[in-house]
């Protein structure tokens, strides 16, 4: 049942093309909506059990020999995310039904990718097996890129899609390596199994390497500095996608991973510092960059980056619970983890509603540029109200849910001073506080520039009016949640947040972090800090028109993009260079590469195993005509050097081939003889066909050095092949090893039912080799067809 629930979006996605055909392009969103809604209800039924502190584990074996099984595991953390994914998913699908025009857009693509994403995301948060987690992780990267490139005829969409793909898949690979290192140390892919032996993992030599690699995965996915640059470009996706993937769920997968891995890595100071610093830098960078943007979605993108940094920072502070001892300390830092989860939910609600409102503004006015917008308050009163709720929550104003998590965030910052070092930790609090001022600043900016001021109809290409009610339902629901969670902050805490904290900090006594949130908790330092944020934030907003004038502040693009673009260009350039060195276009060079490499490798293996045997006289009697055949071959080989025209060349080459097949026949290898004979025949035909496109044989003047080099290479190859052959033959007789052919002689009839040993080896004992060989042969055949029939005539765009 649980597995079915996780996979149901993927299965439904497979049905989508049929459904689309069957409904002939009607709005299939309504059918799609059923999936997240029913999943949300299904996962909600788990709430009572999870609230009691139970966990659910269902195993489905997949690759048992590698220890990979699809273990669905539901605990507080997983359920929190599952509800978030399905809940926001349902609202987003509902929104998309009204947002995307069914006549203009390829809705079946859209919903297919969206369902793919939903299933993959559920798989990430509900699987206990690292490999399964990784597979779903990459699936989210893939579906995210597909959704970013939904309008694939726009260059910027494709650029954004490629960027997000490259960065997140790079992180995913690093994460996979980290998982494998964990497997090497712990001997299991099960997360719970690894957590159980966290103590022994802590001292293991691969611990830090695994940690860094896993963090790379988490940081790239969650857009942490300096990997955040993909997120602003991912805003090219349709707005429902931005609301869903790039603010509420997918970018939180990294946060999820960090939270999930906390019991394994949390005791380490490196982990603490990595999260603390990355989170802090990301938070500041994001909120400062957000102010520079003119595009509403750009502001929200950088704001999301900043908030993700905040979540990482909070988890970092929370990990101090595992480093420091003492009940009081643990209580303080467990509060930071609670804050992170509360804020995670709050962020999903207010950021989701804001993205949807921005989508509505884009939809109704045709622009998202704050330089053109203004005065929409009276035109779109409902959208304004929802935006006001969302922005106030983001800025941290009461009575909205953002206020509560912001206050708790300040508490967590202050609590750092309990750590050894005392007041030296004040700087973290100050930096975090400064970032909050900027957060307030861009919230005020969004509200001020979009909704207040004078409404100028000539700025817009279309008549501006309030959005249809269908489009407004989802943001209104989220906006009400923003208010509801602000007024009743404990709504989710006992049943959902606390079990989730329990899965992040399993070692702690649940009594330590079971506390209640309050909207108003009397005058305190935190309240003073909030007041300071409001005052300084307003000042910042007032002074923005002046500071935004020039220099760094006037540029929208993140300077780190230059690193990415330059790196990509350098990669293309250098691979072209390397290809240029290797691909000379001369068959001669390719032969040199192949032969020296093959002989060199074989000779090295022989040399290392010390199995070169000096050629000794082979005593066995051979009939006189064998010497004759050998002599003929040698003469033919030397004659090849003298031949100047191609026909004679082929004939002489044919002599060598025929003599070889004759030798095979004499030494009773009929199969080889037959094959050699047929290959000779076909080769002659092919050579004859290729004749007329070969250039004239010209006397080429080759420099002396080059001649010597060629002589050296060819004699080395010849001598090498000879020595290897002789050694292969005499090494066995010298050391008394049994020949492998004895095995085949004995078993080919017994085990494979065939008397022709060669054929039995080909199709049975070594059938995998044969399979791959014919694959190569097939590729060569199709490759020739492609290269000849579709060759470049020059001037095409590759």
């Amino acid at each position, binding site marked *: 049942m649980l597995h079915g629930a996780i996979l149901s979006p993927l299965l439904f996605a497979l049905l989508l093309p049929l459904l689309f055909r069957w409904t002939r392009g009607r709005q299939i969103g309504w059918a799609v909506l059923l999936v997240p809604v029913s999943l949300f209800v299904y996962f909600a039924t788990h709430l009572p059990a999870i609230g009691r502190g139970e966990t659910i584990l269902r195993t489905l074996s997949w690759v048992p020999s590698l220890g990979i099984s699809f273990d669905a595991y539901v605990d507080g953390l997983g359920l929190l995310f599952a509800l978030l994914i399905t809940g926001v998913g349902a609202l987003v699908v509902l929104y998309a039904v009204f947002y995307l025009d069914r006549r203009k857009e390829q809705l079946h693509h859209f919903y297919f990718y969206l369902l793919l994403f939903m299933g993959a995301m559920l798989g990430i948060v509900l699987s206990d097996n690292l490999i399964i987690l990784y597979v779903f992780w990459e699936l989210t990267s893939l579906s995210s890129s597909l959704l970013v490139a939904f309008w694939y005829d726009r260059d910027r969409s494709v650029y954004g899609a490629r960027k997000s793909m490259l960065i997140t898949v790079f992180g995913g690979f690093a994460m996979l390596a980290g998982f494998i290192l964990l497997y090497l140390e712990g001997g299991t892919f099960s997360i719970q199994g690894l957590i159980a032996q966290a103590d022994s993992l802590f001292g293991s030599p691969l611990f830090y390497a695994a940690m860094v690699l896993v963090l790379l995965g988490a940081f790239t996915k969650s857009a942490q500095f300096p990997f955040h640059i993909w997120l602003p470009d991912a805003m090219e996706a349709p707005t429902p996608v931005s609301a869903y993937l790039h603010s509420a769920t997918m970018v939180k997968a990294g946060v999820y991973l960090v939270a999930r891995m906390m019991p394994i890595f949390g005791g380490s100071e490196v982990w603490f510092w990595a999260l603390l610093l990355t989170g802090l830098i990301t938070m500041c960078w994001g909120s400062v960059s957000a102010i520079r943007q003119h595009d509403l979605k750009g502001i929200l993108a950088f704001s999301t980056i900043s908030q993700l940094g905040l979540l990482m920072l909070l988890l970092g502070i929370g990990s101090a619970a595992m480093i420091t001892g003492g009940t009081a300390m643990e209580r303080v830092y467990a509060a930071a983890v609670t804050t992170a989860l509360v804020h995670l939910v709050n962020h999903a609600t207010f950021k989701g509603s804001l993205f949807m409102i921005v989508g509505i503004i884009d939809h109704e006015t045709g622009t998202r540029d704050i330089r053109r917008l203004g005065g929409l308050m009276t035109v779109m009163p409902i959208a304004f109200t929802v935006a006001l709720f969302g922005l106030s929550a983001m800025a941290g104003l009461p009575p909205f849910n953002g206020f509560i998590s912001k206050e708790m965030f300040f508490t967590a910052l202050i609590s750092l001073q309990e750590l050894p070092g005392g007041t030296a930790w004040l700087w973290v609090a100050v930096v975090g506080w400064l970032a909050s001022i900027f957060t307030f600043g861009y919230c005020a900016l969004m509200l001020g520039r979009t909704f207040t001021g004078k409404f100028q109809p000539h700025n817009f290409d279309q008549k501006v009016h309030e959005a249809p009610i269908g489009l407004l339902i989802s943001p209104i629901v989220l906006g009400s949640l923003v208010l509801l969670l602000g007024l009743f902050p404990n709504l989710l805490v006992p049943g959902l947040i606390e079990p989730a904290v329990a899965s992040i900090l399993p070692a702690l006594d649940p009594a330590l972090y079971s506390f209640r949130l309050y909207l108003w908790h009397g005058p305190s330092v935190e309240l003073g800090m909030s007041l300071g944020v409001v005052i300084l934030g307003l000042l910042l907003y007032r002074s923005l028109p002046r500071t935004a004038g020039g220099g760094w502040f006037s540029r929208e693009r993140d300077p780190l993009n230059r690193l990415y673009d330059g790196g990509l260009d350098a990669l293309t350039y250098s691979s072209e260079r390397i290809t240029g060195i290797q691909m000379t276009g001369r068959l001669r060079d390719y032969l040199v590469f192949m032969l020296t490499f093959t002989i060199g490798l074989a000779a090295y293996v022989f040399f290392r195993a010390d199995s070169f045997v000096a050629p000794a006289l082979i005593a066995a009697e051979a009939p006189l005509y064998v010497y004759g055949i050998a002599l003929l071959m040698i003469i033919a080989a030397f004659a090849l050097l003298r031949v100047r025209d191609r026909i004679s060349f082929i004939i002489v080459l044919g002599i060598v081939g025929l003599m070889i097949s004759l030798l095979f026949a004499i030494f009773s290898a009929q199969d080889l003889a037959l094959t050699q004979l*047929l290959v000779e025949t076909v080769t002659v035909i*092919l050579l004859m066909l290729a004749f007329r496109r070969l250039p004239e044989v010209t006397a080429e003047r080759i420099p002396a050095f080059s001649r010597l080099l060629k002589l050296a290479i060819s004699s080395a190859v010849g001598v090498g092949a000879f020595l290897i052959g002789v050694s292969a033959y005499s090494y066995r007789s010298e050391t008394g090893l049994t020949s492998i052919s004895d095995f085949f002689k004995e078993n080919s009839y017994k085990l*494979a039912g065939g008397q022709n040993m060669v054929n039995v080896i080909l199709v049975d004992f070594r059938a995998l080799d044969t399979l791959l060989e014919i694959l190569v042969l097939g590729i060569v055949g199709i490759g020739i067809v492609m290269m000849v029939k579709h060759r470049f005539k020059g001037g095409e765009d590759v």
Partner: protein
Amino acid sequence: MRFSREHDVMQRVFVTIVICLLLAFSWYLFLAGHNRPGGGFIGGLMTASAIVLMYMFFGARETERVLRLSYPVVIALGLLIAAAVSSLGLLAGDAFVTQYFDYVTLPLVGELELATAIPFDFGVYLVVVGATMAATVTIAEDED
């Protein structure tokens, strides 16, 4: 190389017989492969030579009228058969490319060996024919 078309009747008849013999012999080689010299690779090469002979004596149009084959499809089919036979073992819970054989007694025919290696070898045969012919025909038909 242009495939020539004009030949006298004697030659045509003679070549037709040779081609038939070649094709029959190549099929024999393929089937005999399990116990005697031969097999998919050799059989395939011989079939390919027979088809080349057809092209050379009867011309491309005539040959392609008789043999309506797309050689890339032949290659793909061969790979598909080989891969499918190789995967049989997976269904039985054995390793990939496990081959099975058994002896059955049929009426009139007598005892017969049935082995999964034969369809596998047929895949090899098809790929060899396909790849050889694809290369030959493509190069031969290329205009410039």
